[in-house]
């Protein structure tokens, strides 16, 4: 079976490809370029196309599939009416699938399930990364705020930190938010 993964994010495409590589009898093609997309799909002649919902080329590809029906290779969005939930899960994960006419749902489902799992795994990876980045940025701003308090009020580092913490507790805010306010105020007052 020939599977095309259409995704403008090369890293996500790689994660999905890796997941599908464990399937037997499947050849996997990755298309990340928008230009010449239709021609590339034509060359690959896939049995299944997996495409992320955020891809701006979905309408272009659907049009191509609709027209290719005339050419005798019908391909349509995979909608398994016997299992609405599975399709809803794939939309939730952000993946759409197009399948050549005549392919049995039982052959498609394992591939789709795997793709959904990989899409979800990628989304988790990204949110973990975003969280890690956010934490790093927070630590930087807290360090900056501490230095400002140490310079302007002669605090030691532990004193500066405890001042930030106390203010945060009093105002029901997070330390990073108070630190942010200190840094902003300092900049407004002409500090660096």
């Amino acid at each position, binding site marked *: 079976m020939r599977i095309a993964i259409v995704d403008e994010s090369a890293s996500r495409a790689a994660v999905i490809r890796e997941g599908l590589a464990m399937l037997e009898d499947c050849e996997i093609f990755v298309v990340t370029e928008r230009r010449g997309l239709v021609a590339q799909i034509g060359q690959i002649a896939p049995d299944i196309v997996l495409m992320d*919902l*955020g891809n*701006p080329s*979905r309408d272009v590809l*659907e*049009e191509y599939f*609709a027209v290719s029906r005339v050419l005798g290779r019908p391909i349509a969005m995979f909608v398994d*009416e016997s299992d609405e939930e599975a399709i809803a899960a794939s939309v939730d994960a952000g993946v759409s699938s197009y399948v050549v006419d005549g392919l049995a749902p039982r052959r498609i489902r394992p591939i789709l399930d795997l793709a959904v799992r990989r899409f979800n795994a990628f989304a988790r990876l990204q949110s973990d990364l975003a969280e890690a980045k956010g934490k790093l940025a927070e630590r930087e701003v807290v360090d900056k705020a501490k230095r400002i308090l140490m310079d302007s009020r002669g605090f030691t580092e532990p004193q500066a930190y405890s001042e930030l913490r106390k203010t945060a507790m009093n105002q029901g805010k997070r330390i990073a938010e108070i630190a942010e306010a200190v840094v902003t105020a300092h900049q407004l007052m002409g500090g660096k």
Partner: protein
Amino acid sequence: MGSDASPGELTIGFLPLVDACLPILAREHGFAEAEGLSLRLVRDMSWATVLDRLLYGHSDAAHMVAPLAIATTLGRGRPAQPLSVPFVLGLNGNAVTMRPDLARAINPAGGLGDPAQVGAALKAHLAQTGKPLRFGVVHRYSSHNYMLRYWLAGCGVRPDVDVEITTVAPPFCADALEFGEVDAICVGEPWNSVAVERGAGEIVLVTAQIWRRGVEKVLALREPVMEERRAEVEALVRALRKAGEHFVDPANLDDNAAILARAEYLDGSATLIRRAISDRLLLAQGGEVLHYPDFMFQHREAANFPWVSQAEWLYSQMVRWDGMGFDASDARKAARVFRPDVYRSALLGTGEPLPGASSKVEGSLGGPTSVSMQQGVITLENNRFFDGRPFDPALLQRYIESQRLA
């Protein structure tokens, strides 16, 4: 998300186009809030995804190209799911932009061309060069596609034979012109202006010249969702009417352009957006900005009223270009997608004008005409098709047959 939301919370899907303005402004100016609604707007990059989110409950309602709502109801391209349209988000607002050399060849005088003359010149050009041209539209089931085809066929240029019509995503229209993937595009704003600013294209026609009052985007919901959440849908209709009133007031242009330009909405140039929403167009690089008063039509003349006859015209074009036969049951389903009854019950007792009829002969008015009203007063103005042929929904089947012969 979606249908699991608490009462008063509605999620609306949209594409970054200027005619997504009414839901955006209903939220931003508090018209939705005043009706007890809280709107969440979800931006996507393709109509396919806007539709998927609607069908699988990620959104409750969507900004949608009108023919797609009918195609979905009739099961074109995927299993049928009935959609309902209680409100038309606007009329027209699209343009035909051509590669500069093609624009000059078939419209040598410059400016907005006369549709019949430009069409005749295009036909002559095709005969002379012997090379078919490729036009891009934003979706197979879009008013852009149907208006463009109506114009071409009416000028003796055969779509799919003399001119290939292909789908190009709006954000890539300027690119597609620049790299020669297409010779012309029919797209909404700000994408024509982006192509013009880059020197990739020149605007030759606006779709309002092809059909002066052509239905464009609609507010679409799954029929069962509309029935279940009827009170909220009616509140949304009222909020959108208020947003329209604000949108067409010239005093609010700067404000509204700035809101629409924001990163979470159109993420584009406020200058280009302001130009489009004030019905102004720069036709060619280095030229003057032209004011074409009915370029976009979001409010006057009860523009948001979902005339059943508009849905039927779209069905007539779907039959024409999808090569399907007329089917009385399909025609009835298509007509039922537009729901003037919901629009009426939402606005009954407010100051909003409500037409007395739910259907009209489209394209029959050459000048200002008073129409009979259930409530309020409106004067409908010129609503003609460029070839002067009216569409009488009572003669739907005959209209479809006459187009087949043409």
